[in-house]
């Protein structure tokens, strides 16, 4: 089944790209209207105390453009690697019926390598957060 084609591209009867674009426009429109309404009829009394950042009543010191811990960066890197590998698995899953056992053996090898990679970053401590107990 291939619902996105050029024949019914602008037809309102087809559940294709046109329908999606119109829906997207409607969604953005509704959100814009909500922003607009609240900007028009919302209360507007600016003040120094109001526009100060909330830190539980204490006057904030310094900027909040802080450096953040390395584990967050590591998670982002791992995500990139595993997500791309996930894309390969998805491509196989869609064509699984045609590929048969040969495809299964190949993807199994791929997934096992992936699992070994996960085990490696696990052993290396890439998935650990905070200090280790006993240190």
């Amino acid at each position, binding site marked *: *089944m291939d619902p996105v084609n050029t024949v019914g591209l602008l037809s309102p009867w087809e559940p294709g790209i046109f329908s999606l674009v119109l829906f997207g426009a409607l*969604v953005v429109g509704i959100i814009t209207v909500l922003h607009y309404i609240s900007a028009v009829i919302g209360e507007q009394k600016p003040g120094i105390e109001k526009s100060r950042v909330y830190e539980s009543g204490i006057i904030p010191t310094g900027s909040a453009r802080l450096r953040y811990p390395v584990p967050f960066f590591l998670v982002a890197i791992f995500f990139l690697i595993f997500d791309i590998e996930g894309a390969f698995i998805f491509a196989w899953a869609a064509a699984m019926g045609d590929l048969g056992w040969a495809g299964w053996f190949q993807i199994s090898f791929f997934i096992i390598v992936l699992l070994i990679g*996960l085990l490696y970053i696990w052993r290396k401590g890439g*998935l650990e957060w905070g200090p280790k107990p006993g240190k």
Partner: protein
Amino acid sequence: MTLWISGYILLLVKFGLVLGCLLFLAAYLVWAERKLLARLQIRYGPNRAGKFGLLQPIADAVKMITKEDIIPAEADQSIFLLAPTVVAATALLMFAVVPFGESLAIMGQRIPLVITDLNVGLLFIFALSSLGVYGVALGGWASNSKYSLLGGIRGAAQMISYELALGLSLVPVVMLAGSFSLVDIVNAQSGYPYILVQPVSFAVFFISAMAESKRIPFDLPEAENELGAGYHTEYSGMRFGLFFIGEYVHIQVLGALTAVFFLGGWHGPFLPPFVWLLVKMIFIALVMIWIRGTLPRLRYDQLMALGWKVLVPVSLVNIIVTGAVILMVG
């Protein structure tokens, strides 16, 4: 030409109904959550506005619209304004690929009861849920508040971690249905829902979905008692409202997706198809509220350990096993 114009009008009516339903249900899901949570904690919940507090969502909406929209002095203005829009828009757009029935026949024409039947519908959902991370991360960063920054970073790290498990848990569904299109996936479940053959996938998907929607026990990005409200500490008025709409629409969409992937979508006896989808959606949403009333919040290392050390390996092994079983059965 008249056919085209009537087609456009019907299309707009369909969109209006879908969006109206989603936003109305989002408002009343907030009410249901407050009411049910209150009952679970042995108190009454909202009961002043209308009978059983049924007018509470309307009162909330009026309040949010008329409240002052405060932007912190040091905030990054344009990104600060953009973030809630991203959160709400991605949640609403995700519903575009969810089928809510067979096609209707009006005026000799077929009206599909789905907004768009993309052949890569599942990937579309992943793309939007990845974009949703931007709303959280940028909202937290742009506020220039330490609480918000922490909430935003936590949210981004949590959402990308669980997105991996979410994606991998759906590979067996794609294998069974042989298609990325949500319409095909629902049609493939006309005999039996996939939860019967894929309980492991279902569990992984449901846990990841709860983590994606940042709800207790995974609500570390918001964590009221340590971060204020996390990434939306600095938001007020309608922008806060948009974060809220985004969150509750997201819950509904995840309920609908759970129904589509594992519970047979709109298939069901006796009742009309869209009622079945609605029932399944609301059931999942109520289960999420129940879990919120039952479980405590996880610690951050526990959260990450659950995602990376349990859900990802389990779903990878599940893929291999499912593939072998499908090929053996034929």
